[in-house]
């Protein structure tokens, strides 16, 4: 009896183990597919321009070219552009979060006549193609004297990320039980205190989702940046790649190094916030 039990135990253990192995193999395969572009990027950034055009998938550089990174830092003005990118993207993320929480709360929880209309109006922003606004915005900016200032990028970055942010926020705010807010009001909470102290902590995951989406959307944006900026003062990281673009052919190796450096912060942000984003997106999907 007891022997039989141990056998079946061992069997199910074995079963479990083989299932685990299959799971691991699948996961490792997926991980390799996902990570390969990054590995490829780093690999190519350490080769010389001439080794780039091989038929193989990866290059084994004859000599590891750390010089590519040095050139990227010095000639690509990497640190200045990194500072600008972080500042502009950081501010854009903060503004989008603050505005979308407040607007989301106002449109979902507060009762006023045009709440539905205002929400639709803001969400309609999702339908406007960014590039259609390029030249009209340039004209407006130069009339207002905003070209080549930080506002030239901050305004469109916030404006174009806001609809998406608002869309996610409203569905999350929906999920917060009204009773909690009612209780807060009973205890004498004002409206801003409700938002800051009651609602915001409860929708942390959605804040992470919106933050990561806004950040990744704007991090690599180049078309608007190249049109609205002219002096190096506020140029963002994608300009760094441009510094190595020749008239006919380019310094590919250094461009790879720049791209690896540009991708790094985005990857770090993703890794840091990633445990929230999966939760966040799934929750939003059901409640929307």
């Amino acid at each position, binding site marked *: 009896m007891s022997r039989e039990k141990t056998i079946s135990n061992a069997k199910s253990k074995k079963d479990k183990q083989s299932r685990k192995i299959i799971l691991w193999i699948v996961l490792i395969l997926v991980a390799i597919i996902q990570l390969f572009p990054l590995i490829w990027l780093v690999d190519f950034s350490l080769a*010389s*321009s*001439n080794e*780039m*055009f091989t038929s193989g998938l990866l290059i084994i550089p004859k000599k590891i070219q750390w010089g590519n990174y040095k050139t990227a830092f010095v*000639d690509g003005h990497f640190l200045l552009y990194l500072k600008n990118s972080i500042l502009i993207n950081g501010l854009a993320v903060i503004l989008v979060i603050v505005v979308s929480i407040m607007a989301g709360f106002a449109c979902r929880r507060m009762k006023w*006549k*045009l709440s539905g209309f205002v929400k639709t109006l803001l969400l309609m922003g999702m339908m406007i193609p960014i590039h259609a606004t*390029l*030249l009209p915005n*340039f*004209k407006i900016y*130069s009339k*207002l*004297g*905003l*070209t*080549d*200032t930080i*506002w030239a990028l901050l305004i469109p970055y916030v404006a174009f990320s806001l609809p998406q942010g608002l869309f996610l926020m409203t569905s999350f705010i929906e999920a917060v039980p009204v009773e909690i807010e009612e209780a807060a009001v009973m205890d004498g909470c004002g409206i801003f205190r409700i938002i800051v102290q009651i609602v915001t902590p409860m929708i942390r995951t959605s804040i992470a989702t919106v933050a990561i989406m806004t950040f990744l959307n704007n991090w690599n944006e*180049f*078309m608007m940046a*190249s*049109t609205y900026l*002219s*002096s190096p003062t506020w140029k963002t990281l994608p300009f760094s790649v*441009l*510094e*190595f*673009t*020749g*008239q*006919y*052919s*380019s*310094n*590919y190796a250094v461009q790879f190094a720049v791209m690896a450096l540009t991708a790094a912060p985005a990857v770090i942000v993703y890794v840091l916030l990633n445990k929230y984003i999966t939760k966040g997106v799934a929750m939003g999907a059901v409640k929307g």
Partner: protein
Amino acid sequence: MKRKLVSVVLATTMLATMVTGCGGKDNSSADGAAGTEKSDDSGSNGGASGDAVTLKVYSNLPDRNNGQGLVEQMIIDDYMEENPNVTIEVEALDEEAYKTKFKAYSMEGMPDVVSIWGQPSFLDEVLDAGVLAELNEADYADYGFLDGSLEGFKKDGKLYGLPRNTDVAVFYYNQKIFDDNGWSVPETYDDLLALAGPIKDAGLIPVAMDGGDGWPMAVYLSDLMFKITGDYHQTALDALANADFSDPAFTEATQLMKDAADAGLFQNGYDSQDYGTAMNLFTNGQAAMFYMGSWETSMATNEDIPEEVRENIRVFTMPVVKDGKATATDIEAWNGGGYAVSANSEVKDEAIKFLNYMYQPDKLSKYGWENGVGMSAQDQSAYMTGDETELQKQIVDIVSQSTKVSGTTINDLGPAAFKTAIESQIQGVSNGTITIDEFLTGIADSVK
């Protein structure tokens, strides 16, 4: 209903006040920027008296440490050193971004000195907008510009810009590979096509072609057209004006180009591979020839290219075609990029002074020659040191011995829509996806 109307009006008013409120705030926050602009203005007024002047240069050469971009930057540095009161601010973007922002600038005021292309596909729209300043052609009589090189920068007899380079379409070839296999430089187009078989049998690619970009193939087509007609300029302009490309020369040239692709002259996948890929096939010794412009002469001095390739690069131009009207020394050459001054520049005098400075014989020509970025549009024989690479000497000979030059390539003769049409459909006709007739009606439709 009435209440609804009232609320809509109220909302609009609120929105309006919000917007104007923001506008006011934006204005005040932008004061810093406006302030600097003002100081620029005062600088320009005092330019004559030696006060600070800021010149804005808008360039299509983002890489300031290599090639043409380096040459441009060297001249700018020289100028600032000689004129301490002048500050030159460079803004550089690459081709597509450059042209997009150029449009934006033409609405709201150009930088003082800009890069332009002396081709109708670019220049026509720009000149119609009236954003470029007219230059006095007589001033440039002793600048040594090559015959006809200013033509592309003129409209109604008035000069609006100056050319930077002379570009020649050539076949670069690896002499060592040719010698080792007993191949010789083709005398006729049929000879060239006949080379495809033996070269492929030797395990090499006959001609590395940048077909992915469209324009090199359009240059190839123009080159053939030139060999057939001896002068395609008027034929092409007529065809563009009438939206009718039924002239037999177009069909013949397209057929000859297709013959090359059919004979396997270009590498596999030439129709999607880009500049760098094609060039590297040649510089790695995988391809025996490479069809490109004379600006790649610097390959001969590029340390990144293996020595056995770099020292054996030689060049020939498109061989004659059967019953063609052009001789072997008639070459496909044009003056593409150049510079112009903004019509509304507040420091126009200084800008023109700087423009002329760039074209002083010992600047663009000399620096360009020393850095191997190709031929300038001016006479640069004075800068030959005798230490030039074999390749450089060959190119100089080709230009100096040429009996006739073609001028602007066909794709750049028409408006921008035509350029896009021909450069996006040319791969299709060469690989047989569309027929020659479909191709010719397709490009005709773009100018209707």
